[in-house]
C-alpha cells in the first residue's frame, strides 16, 4: 500500500511529505546511535543506512508506515543528546519537534538510561502523545543492567516497549502500542530540576550488578591506547585495503572477466555484424582493433562503457563496501577518529573527519555528504575539498590499477603517495589561511558489536544498488557524449585549445586533454580513455594524478554545490584545479630528473 491509498491525505496528488498538514506525522526520536535508523527501516520497509557510530543520520529521512488501518509519515529525526542544541543535528531535531507531530516514538538505549533520559524528558515536556521503545534490552542484560520496565512506565507516564531493533524483537508490539501513546505529565522544567528527576528515576528503576571486564572490553580499551591504538589503526587500514584489492581482483579474474569474454564479447561481435557500418554501430560498439572488439579501447557504449563500469569497477565497489560496512557496524570507525584526531587537527578538522574520508574512498558523494558530521562550515569546507582533491573513489582506484598496474606496482604506489602528500600540504595550507573556527572533538565511542550478517548483506546490497542507479546513466551518457563530440570535431578543438598547457607544462600529448575534460562526467571512464593514447609510464602517472585531482565528477559537483553553496564550491574547484596543474607540472619535472 502506498501513502496515497490510505485516504487520510484526502485529495493529495503525491506521496506525503513533511509539509503536508493533513497527513499524520510520527516522529522517531532519540539519542545518536540508539538504533533509530534500524527502526525506520523496519517500520517503513525503506532502507535507511545505519551504522554503529553516532551521526549516521544528520539530515532527516521520511518514509511511510502502516498502522491503525491506514498510514502515516514517519520522520527519522537526527540523533540528539539534548534539545538545547550544541550542534546542527540537534538544531534540526529541535526544529522538527517544534513543528509538532501526531505521535512520537522515542527510542531509548537501555544500556545508557541516565543519559538518554535527558533528551527523553525534554521530548516528553513537549506534551505530544508518545510511546517509548526501550532498545538494546539484550545488551543491557548482558552488561548487568536491570531495568524495572513497569516502574519506568509509571515514572514517565507513557507506554514502554522493550525492543531489540536489529533482530526485530518488539517491533510489532511497538506498532500496536502506538494507539496507546499518551501525553506525559512532565511539564517544562529547568536543567537542574530535570537532572534531579532523572536521578530519582534511575534510583527507583535501575539496578546495576557488578560485571568484570570481558574480552571485548579489553579490545575496546586497547584500541584507545596511544601505541597499540595507533598500531591497530594502521593495521586495520592496511589489512582493509589488502582485502579490498585481493577480493576486487579475484572477482575480476574469476567472475567478471570470464563473463565478459565468454558471453558478452561474442554477443557484441554478432551485434556488430548485424549493425554493419554507420553511426549506430560506431556509438554502440566503437572502434575495432584488427577487426575485433577490444573491451578496454573500443570506446562504444556497450563495449568500453559496460566493461569499465561493470567489469572493472563494480568488483572493487563490492569489495570496498563489504569491508567498510563491516567496520562501520563493528564500531571501529570512531576509534580511528580518536587515533587520527591529533594529526587531523593540524589540518583544521577533528578526528571524526576520518569517517567521511573513508566513505570518500568508496565514492566521493557519500564522503561529501558525510562531512555533515563536522560541526563548523570551515571544517566542512576543508574536509570536502580534501576529499575531492586527495581521496580517489574506488572507481578511480580500480582504473588506477588498470592504467598504471601494467607498468608495475611502484607506479600505483607513486600515485597514492603523490595524492597523500598533496592532501597533507593542501590541508595544512587551508588550516593556516582559512578564517573561522574548528570545534573540538567530544564524542561517544560506541561499544564493539559483532555485526549481524543480514544487516551487513542488506547494507552492501543497498550501496551496490545505489552505484547502479547513479553510475549507469552517467557512464552510458558520458560514452555517448564522447562519441558525439568526436563526430562533431569538438574533441579536436578542446585538444588544440589546451595543447600548450598539456604539451608544454604537463609533458602530455594534446589528446590527453580530452579525457581530463571528460573526467567531469565519470573519472573512471575518463581514465579508460587514456589507455588508447599509448602514453609512457611516466606520462600515464602524470595524467592519472591530474585526472584524479581535477574537478570532481558531475555527481560530486552537485553534492558539493548543495552542501557548500555554489560560491564555496567554486572556491573549492579553484583549489582543485590549481593543485592538480601544479602537482602535474612538478611531477613531470621530477619524472624527467629521475
Amino acid at each position: 500500500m502506498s501513502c496515497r491509498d490510505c485516504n487520510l491525505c484526502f485529495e493529495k496528488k503525491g506521496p506525503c511529505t513533511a509539509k503536508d498538514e493533513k497527513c499524520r506525522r510520527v516522529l522517531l526520536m532519540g539519542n545518536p546511535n540508539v538504533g533509530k535508523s534500524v527502526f525506520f527501516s523496519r517500520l517503513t520497509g525503506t532502507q535507511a543506512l545505519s551504522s554503529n557510530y553516532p551521526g549516521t543520520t544528520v539530515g532527516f529521512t521520511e518514509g511511510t508506515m502502516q498502522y491503525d488501518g491506514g498510514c502515516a509519515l514517519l520522520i527519522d529525526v537526527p540523533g540528539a543528546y539534548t534539545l538545547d542544541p550544541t550542534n546542527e543535528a540537534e538544531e534540526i531535531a529541535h526544529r522538527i519537534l517544534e513543528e509538532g507531530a501526531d505521535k512520537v516514538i522515542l527510542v531509548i538505549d537501555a544500556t545508557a538510561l541516565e543519559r538518554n533520559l535527558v533528551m527523553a524528558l525534554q521530548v516528553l515536556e513537549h506534551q505530544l502523545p508518545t510511546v517509548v521503545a526501550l532498545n538494546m534490552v539484550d545488551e543491557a542484560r548482558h552488561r548487568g543492567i536491570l531495568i524495572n520496565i513497569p516502574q519506568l512506565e509509571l515514572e514517565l507516564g507513557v507506554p514502554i516497549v522493550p525492543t531489540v531493533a536489529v533482530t526485530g524483537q518488539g517491533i510489532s508490539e511497538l506498532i500496536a502500542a502506538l494507539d496507546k501513546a499518551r501525553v506525559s505529565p512532565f511539564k517544562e522544567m529547568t536543567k537542574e530540576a530535570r537532572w534531579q528527576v532523572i536521578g530519582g528515576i534511575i534510583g527507583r528503576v535501575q539496578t546495576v550488578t557488578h560485571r568484570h571486564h570481558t574480552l571485548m572490553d579489553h579490545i575496546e580499551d586497547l584500541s584507545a591506547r596511544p601505541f597499540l591504538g595507533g598500531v591497530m589503526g594502521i593495521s586495520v587500514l592496511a589489512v582493509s585495503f589488502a582485502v579490498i584489492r585481493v577480493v576486487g581482483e579475484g572477482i575480476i579474474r574469476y567472475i567478471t572477466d570470464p563473463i565478459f569474454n565468454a558471453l558478452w564479447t561474442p554477443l557484441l561481435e554478432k551485434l556488430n555484424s548485424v549493425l554493419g557500418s554507420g553511426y549506430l554501430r560506431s556509438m554502440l560498439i566503437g572502434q575495432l582493433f584488427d577487426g575485433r572488439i577490444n573491451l578496454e579501447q573500443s570506446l562504444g557504449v556497450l563495449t568500453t562503457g559496460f566493461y569499465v563500469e561493470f567489469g572493472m569497477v563494480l568488483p572493487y565497489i563490492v569489495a570496498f563496501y563489504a569491508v567498510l560496512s563491516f567496520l562501520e557496524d563493528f564500531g571501529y570507525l570512531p576509534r580511528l577518529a580518536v587515533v587520527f584526531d591529533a594529526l587531523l587537527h593540524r589540518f583544521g578538522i577533528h578526528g571524526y573527519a576520518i569517517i567521511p574520508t573513508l566513505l570518500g574512498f568508496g565514492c566521493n558523494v557519500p564522503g561529501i555528504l558525510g562531512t555533515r558530521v563536522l560541526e563548523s562550515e570551515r571544517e566542512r569546507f576543508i574536509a570536502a575539498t580534501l576529499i575531492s582533491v586527495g581521496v580517489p573513489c574506488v572507481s578511480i582506484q580500480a582504473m588506477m590499477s588498470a592504467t598504471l598496474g601494467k607498468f608495475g606496482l611502484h607506479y600505483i604506489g607513486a600515485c597514492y603517495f603523490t595524492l597523500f602528500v598533496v592532501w597533507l600540504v593542501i590541508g595544512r595550507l587551508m588550516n593556516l589561511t582559512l578564517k573561522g573556527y574548528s570545534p573540538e572533538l567530544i564524542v561517544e565511542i560506541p561499544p564493539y558489536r559483532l555485526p549481524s550478517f543480514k544487516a551487513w548483506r542488506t547494507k552492501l546490497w543497498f550501496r551496490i544498488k545505489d552505484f547502479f542507479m547513479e553510475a549507469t546513466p552517467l557512464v552510458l551518457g558520458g560514452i555517448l557524449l564522447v562519441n558525439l563530440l568526436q563526430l562533431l570535431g569538438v574533441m579536436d578543438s578542446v585538444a588544440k585549445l589546451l595543447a600548450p598547457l598539456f604539451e608544454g607544462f604537463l609533458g602530455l600529448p594534446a589528446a590527453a586533454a580530452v579525457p581530463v575534460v571528460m573526467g567531469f562526467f565519470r573519472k573512471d571512464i575518463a581514465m579508460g580513455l587514456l589507455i588508447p593514447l599509448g602514453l609512457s609510464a611516466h606520462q600515464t602517472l602524470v595524467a592519472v594524478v591530474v585526472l584524479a585531482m581535477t574537478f570532481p565528477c558531475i555527481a560530486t559537483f552537485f553534492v558539493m554545490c548543495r552542501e557548500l553553496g555554489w560560491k564555496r564550491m567554486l572556491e573549492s574547484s579553484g583549489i582543485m584545479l590549481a593543485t592538480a596543474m601544479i602537482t602535474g607540472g612538478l611531477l613531470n619535472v621530477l619524472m624527467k630528473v629521475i
Partner: protein
Amino acid sequence: MNLIQVQDNNFATIKDIPHDEAGQRFEALGLRIGKRIKKISGMPFEGPVTVMLDGRHFAVAHAVALHVEVEGQEAPSESDEPDERNIWSRFL
C-alpha cells in the same frame, strides 16, 4: 587537577567543566559534575583523552580536557581488575 593530569586507568570525580559550548556538549553526554569517571588513556601529540563512564567510552579533545577539573584520583580497586573467567562472555 585537570583531566590530562589523571593517570591512565585511574578513577576521578568531575569537579568542574568548561562554561562554554564544549562544556554543554560534555554535559549532554552525561559527563556532569559529581560523576566518577575512569581515564582510559591520552593520545600523544595533544590528542584526545578517552574516559569511561557507566561502561561507555567517550573521547574528549585535549583542549577541552585541560579545562575539566577533577578530584579524588584513585587507582582501580581489586574489584575493577579483570576476571579471566568472564572474559569470553561478550562473545557468547
